């Protein structure tokens, strides 16, 4: 089966904006990943690992950035598309949900209009049909009393309702892939679960692919089929969620999993990862995780370890991939 979305060697480089930065800054450096129909892929990493930039690069939403590599949506290269094809693809091929619905929704336009304009852009429905469809969409994402909510402005909705409204907007044109950038980070824990359940239901109902950007391993464990772990703009490791959680193949993933509070195990000591992620200005030709790593050996600083397939369906860029301890399920 052909992947809906295939990203190959994606690079994102910003010209040095701040005077402090010497030379251009490569924020994303050679990321590859696939999303299949009906599959949920987690893109995981700390703040500054390049995960949100990656998501925006896939839709060419970045300002003043140079994007390299290939982004293949059903085999067509998004990065080489002319503008009219790009517009067609955005929203209908790949749609996005952002982290902060308060910022992503236009504060001076009613919710209904913000759904209907997606429908105007991608369908031939007339005004009455668009309105009916907008009501259906709001109902589908669990907003009650949808017909009255069409005229509401974003500030008149609660945080959870705003996020639901944003999901309804993203779904309007019936996208094949949904790109969700930390869609639950701004929400209360109880609402987070509802929104994740909603996304999973939509994936199941519509057969959509979902690329979920998150820093929260708990969310990944609950929702994703496969995961791609980013560190300093590069893929550290990739594999199925079950495999990675059972047997990490990168020292960074290992440390990340140790820093996660175990479910049901009360008051065990967490092991935070010491140090800070590296600055991205001039990456040395070495593994970026070395200063914080407990498994360093001379190979790590000689060259940057390449991402290699260590098992079928598992890729790792760690020299210690076969020396990491398996995790006992807690």
């Amino acid at each position, binding site marked *: 089966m052909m992947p809906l979305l295939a990203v190959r060697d994606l690079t994102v480089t910003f010209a040095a904006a701040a005077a402090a930065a010497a030379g251009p800054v490569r924020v994303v450096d050679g990321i590859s990943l696939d999303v299949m129909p009906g599959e949920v892929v987690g893109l995981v990493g700390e703040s500054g690992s390049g995960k949100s930039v990656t998501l925006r690069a896939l839709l060419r939403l970045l300002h003043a950035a140079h994007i390299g590599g290939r982004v293949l949506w059903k085999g067509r290269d998004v990065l080489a598309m002319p503008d009219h094809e790009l517009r067609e693809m955005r*929203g209908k091929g790949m749609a996005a949900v952002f982290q902060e619905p308060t910022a992503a929704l236009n504060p001076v336009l009613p919710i209904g209009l913000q759904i209907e304009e997606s429908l105007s852009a991608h369908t031939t429905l007339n005004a009455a049909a668009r309105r009916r469809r907008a009501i259906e969409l709001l109902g589908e994402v669990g907003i009650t009393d949808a017909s009255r909510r069409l005229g509401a402005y974003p*500030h008149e909705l609660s945080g959870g309702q705003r996020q639901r409204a944003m999901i309804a907007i993203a779904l309007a044109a019936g996208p094949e892939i949904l790109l969700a950038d930390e869609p639950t980070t701004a929400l209360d824990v109880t609402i987070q679960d509802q929104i994740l359940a909603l996304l999973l239901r939509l994936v199941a109902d519509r057969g959509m692919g979902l690329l979920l950007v998150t820093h929260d391993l708990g969310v990944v464990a609950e929702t994703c089929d496969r995961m791609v772990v980013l560190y300093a703009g590069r893929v550290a490791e990739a594999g199925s969620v079950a495999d990675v959680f059972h047997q990490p193949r990168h020292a960074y993933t290992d440390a990340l999993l140790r820093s996660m509070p175990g479910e049901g195990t009360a008051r065990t000591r967490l092991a935070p990862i010491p140090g800070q992620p590296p600055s991205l200005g001039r990456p040395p030709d070495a593994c970026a995780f070395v200063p914080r790593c407990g498994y360093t050996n001379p190979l790590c600083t000689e060259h940057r370890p390449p991402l290699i397939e260590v098992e079928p369906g598992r890729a790792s860029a760690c020299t210690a991939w076969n020396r990491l301890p398996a995790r006992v399920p807690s």
Partner: protein
Amino acid sequence: MNRAGAIAGRIAQIVPTFFLIGLVVFVLARLLPGDAVSAMLGDRATDETVQRITHQLGLDRSILSQLVAFLAQAAQGRFGESLAFRVPVASLIVERLPVTLMLTGMATLIALCLALPLAFVAAMTANRWPDILIRTVFQVGLSSPVFFVGLVLLTIFAAGLHLFPVGGYGEGFGEHLYHLFLPALTLALSFSAVIMRTLRGSILAVLRAEFVDFARAKGLSSRVILLRHVLRSAAITTVTLVGLHIGSLLGGAVITESVFAVPGVGRLMVDSIFSRDYPVIQALTLILAVLVSLTFLATDLLHGWLDPRTGV
């Protein structure tokens, strides 16, 4: 939130505002140096005449009863008789006010016509040559004083090229437009520079807003994004600025009307101050202040309509 109630509340606020304006105007007129009676009668008046006129004008009554009488009359649009012109103040103002209103209206219209498209072009070409050219030209407009711009325009277009009259107001609407064009343009130049700069800045700020990225992610065309998402949000700050500025245009008309010999309330105000024509000064200040308050009210209502978050 009850929007109609909020609007009614905002309109109700205007009543105490009017009262305070009246009070301030009354006190200010009493604080002016010199006295009206001697201004009227000249140096050779006898004490007896002075007393008679003082009594006639009610200037010998207590200050409080003068205030009450003033406010009661003003509320009915009666401002007494001009000391200098010997005609009712109301008729003087009715004759002159439309001139100033027309001048202000034309100036605002010209300023908007210049500023809106150019702000748009400047924002779209930010920091490239069209933007830099537009900003440089407007910077000159902004930093030149009104009387200077007025004189330059007069010298070139009226005295030099004979395209426009040197001054006056003409007869009939068409001639009014023709006569007021240069003075309106004079007022409009610095005004449009302010609008252009604000709107350009707002457009650039809104273009970087997250909701514009989200709109792009939906696959909307650039035209829809600009007209529906960017311009409306950018207009919010600009509307407030335009409203505030129209208020100062009404006052700024004093200089322009003097330069172009336009018979509006600006010139009437200057003449009245020189002749200590208290009733005219009071009435004009009051009316201009009320007009400015009404402009602000309209601005607030428009702002509330553009930005539903304000609840007005």
